[in-house]
């Protein structure tokens, strides 16, 4: 069962609650079930908390009922998430803070990246910028603290490490994360029609590609002929 604690009303229609000691499957199941509730506009889940944005203010008792009913109706299928392969390119033309970290030592840099490629990531939530995803699953020896002085420009598509998280910059932006490579596919496509390529709680494995293939994939994606590799 879930241990619901510390309800906090940010305003009359925005409620954050912590979920301590909550099993992963239950957390995901609750998120998926709450999302379907007609009284809720949207649900934002972060690491240990969920925030409900309600259509209109309702009694606290009713909110508890909604959450409890949602817990009871969690279906096994609700937390079935996909594993998607995302291309990543380590070409010299992309920003590389790992190389800097190892003072230009190519061998150590390569080893870091090879270890990175073995990790399986989970998209935990979106934040910071539209379409900036926070991925968990980075093994602890690859954790890198955020830079004290942020870079003034991190390029669109940059895959970067911030503490225990991996993120992909959806647009050029100042940022304090450590750049490792570049992904030609956006997680969310806000152009023309909204297209969500990676959903919250989907799993991701990065697959190394060469620059030539990077350009091809980017073009394929723009022409809407790119096929995602989904397991």
């Amino acid at each position, binding site marked *: 069962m879930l241990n619901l604690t510390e309800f906090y009303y*940010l305003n009359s229609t925005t409620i954050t609650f912590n979920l301590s000691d909550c099993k992963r499957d239950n957390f995901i199941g609750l998120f998926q079930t709450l999302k379907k509730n007609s009284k809720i*506009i*949207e649900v934002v889940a972060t690491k240990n*908390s969920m925030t409900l944005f309600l259509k209109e203010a309702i009694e606290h008792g009713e909110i508890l009922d909604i959450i409890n009913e949602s817990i009871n109706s969690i279906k096994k299928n609700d937390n079935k998430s996909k594993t998607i392969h995302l291309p990543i390119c380590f070409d010299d033309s992309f920003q590389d803070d790992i190389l800097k970290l190892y003072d230009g030592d190519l061998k150590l840099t390569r080893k870091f990246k090879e270890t990175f490629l073995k990790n399986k990531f989970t998209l935990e939530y979106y934040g910071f910028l*539209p*379409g900036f995803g926070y991925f968990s699953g980075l093994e602890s020896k690859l954790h890198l603290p955020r830079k004290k002085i942020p870079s003034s420009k991190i390029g669109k598509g940059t895959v970067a490490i911030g503490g225990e998280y991996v993120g992909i910059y959806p647009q050029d932006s100042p940022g304090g994360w450590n750049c490792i490579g570049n992904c030609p596919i956006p997680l969310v496509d*806000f152009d023309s029609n909204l297209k969500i390529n990676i959903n919250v709680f989907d799993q991701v494995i990065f697959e190394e590609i060469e620059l030539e293939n990077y350009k091809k994939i980017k073009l394929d994606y723009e022409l809407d002929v790119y096929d995602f590799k989904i397991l």
Partner: protein
Amino acid sequence: MIEVISSGYFTTIQDSGRKTHRHLGVPISGPMDLNSFYLANLLLPGLDSDSVFECTLIGPKLKLNCNSRFVITGAKFDSYLDNEPVENNKVYSFRAGQILKVGRVKAGLRCYLKFEGTFKIPKILNSKSFFYPITKSISIKDGEKYEFISKTQDINSKIINLKISENAFSKKTLFARPGPDWGLITVEIKKQILSEIFFIKSQNRMGYRLSSELKNDFFNLSSKVVIPGIVQFTPGGEIIIATADCQVTGGYLQILILTDDSLSNLVQKPEGSEVKFRLFDN
């Protein structure tokens, strides 16, 4: 049609905001000063999708190529309809060919110019509010033409004029409720936060930064949802108050939440203004 002769310092189009895509990291946007936005909508009632110009510091000069009405609320700008001075909170009628010039700000920072009708601009993710790069525009630009559908039935109908106290923005005190992390900071810091006077160091549509000498030791908090009005306390001792275009999540201590009135009051203050916090008991 409304033609932008000059765009002013920073003028955006805002409706009530983008309330459906925060789960993808898209800010809510919408007007900074919701009270003034609501007032404009009260004086010229319209649909929720009707949008306003939010003008900052220096307003735009517009050629009005239709017959309709408008109202300006919020900060007091030096404004003219042709040569006639325009007062705030008063509904004016205009005819095609007239020029509306929203000049420099005299008191406050942001005003809301609402026309009686609808701008024919596309909704992106359920809102017309400018937010780059979700919308192509950051702000309106010189020479742009906005197609506008007037809903005015009778431009000679009775003119409404509402008198509102002029010093509404000059209040230094911001009222706030304890935020989710208020319990995590020491009594000493709480006392300082509630007694010191802070200066506004910088501001934009994302937030207001206040200078402070305070420090805290919470470097690695997990991220939580941030909404406009949340007062964040960074490890470096900075106080950042989230406003309309704020990030959807953030990892700073959330110490206070401003009341709606105080948030509307804050966003009318320019850099260098003084503010102080007081707990609001309801």
